[in-house]
């Protein structure tokens, strides 16, 4: 079930503060965050986030058509397994 519109989009408060600060300072430095559940609002556009995937932080550069998705959707938590050798030579084939 979707979230009630009345409440507005969910953005973790501490992340919101960081964004406000970054906007004020006009800094393009990536914002480190564990908050995968925060929804991307128009304020996020143009910023880079380092989103934790449980192990490492993946850089996510937010563009306009990412609005409405969650940060976590862009930082995959699983590795996609393939069979066989993955040398540079095999990949090139």
């Amino acid at each position, binding site marked *: 079930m979707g979230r009630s519109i009345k409440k507005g989009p969910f953005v973790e408060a501490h992340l919101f503060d960081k964004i406000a600060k970054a906007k004020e300072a006009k800094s393009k430095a990536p914002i480190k965050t564990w908050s995968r559940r925060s929804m991307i609002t128009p304020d996020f556009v143009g910023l880079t986030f380092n989103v934790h995937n449980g192990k490492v932080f993946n850089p996510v550069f937010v*563009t306009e*058509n*990412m609005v409405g*998705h969650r940060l*976590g*959707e*862009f930082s*995959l938590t699983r590795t*996609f397994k393939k*069979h*066989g*050798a993955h*040398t540079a030579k*095999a990949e090139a084939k």
Partner: protein
Amino acid sequence: MARIIGVEIPPNKRIDIALRYVYGIGPSNAKEILAAANIDPSIRAKDLTEAQLSQIVHAIQEGKYVIEGDLRREIGLNLKRMQAIKCYRGVRHLRGLPVRGQRTQTNARTRKGPRRTVGVQRNPNAKTGIH
């Protein structure tokens, strides 16, 4: 032969059923459209008069239903957008795997297609110890 919105040709069926042959019109939309056009849903499609047909077409256009090519395009664009931004759902579409969190250890054959055995491509350097 009745034609509604271009190419749809549903013949000997009740009009409420026949309307569903239009891509983007299902049971509930068909019901709504016929109610809006004031037409008995039990009439056969071929028995409709020209006036009734145009009433239906009018109801479809008035009701702002997205159908046929427009709907297909809309769906395609949504897919493309998700794939372009590399979000989880987009990635699953790209790889042809289930998108909504279903298991993939077994089943998922609709998305994955017929079973294929994947042989191991041996690393040619394995014996010599270079990886």
